[in-house]
């Protein structure tokens, strides 16, 4: 296997590892930046 093949396969695997990450849930878990930094 070449370096580029290995890099591409590992990249695909890493992107696959975050498919359960839910940006909507993440946004809701984010401390409200307005509350945190304004005032």
């Amino acid at each position: 296997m070449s370096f580029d093949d290995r890099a591409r396969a590992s990249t695909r695997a890493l992107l696959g590892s975050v498919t359960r990450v839910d940006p909507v849930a993440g946004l809701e878990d984010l401390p409200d930046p307005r509350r945190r930094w304004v005032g």
Partner: protein
Amino acid sequence: MQAGRSARPDVAALRDGGSEVVQLPGRFEYFYLQEYPRVVALAYALSGSRAGAEDIAQEAFLRAYRDWDRVGSYEHRVAWVRRVAANLATSGLRRRMVEARALMRLAGRWEPAVDPLPAGNAEFWAAVRALPSRQAQAVALHYLEDRSIQQTAAVLGCAEGTVKAHLAKARRALARWLRVDGGEP
């Protein structure tokens, strides 16, 4: 949290497929929803921490929001949030602080949303993390983000020639460590 039960109308509309959309997400929310998974992946690649990757990304987005008006255009913000996440992920002390918070937060949960990698792929990214931090960041951005030399330089805030040198050194080292051909670009 259950799907479609968001307390935020903008978020609920997105989750429900938009059939009753009455409100578009704000600029920050849109930016966050578009970019968050990729930034988590970048943080995971460079930190190796399933528990900490989301918190590193969250920290980067919070900082982006704080400086929202100064950060500039959408493309600039895309680069900016990645630079912050990459620096957090490769800075030992700051990464450990974020990871400690993540582990406290995850106490009692099943597991992080980030899945473990198969052994061979985990070995590749562990080798990337063993590189000097700027080389590791260049490799992650170039491969994981599929970014050009020019785009990678913009994220890292350095010259294109510097990125080329980082990538060339990194490829040689990784090919040697991983015992694969093709370390020369």
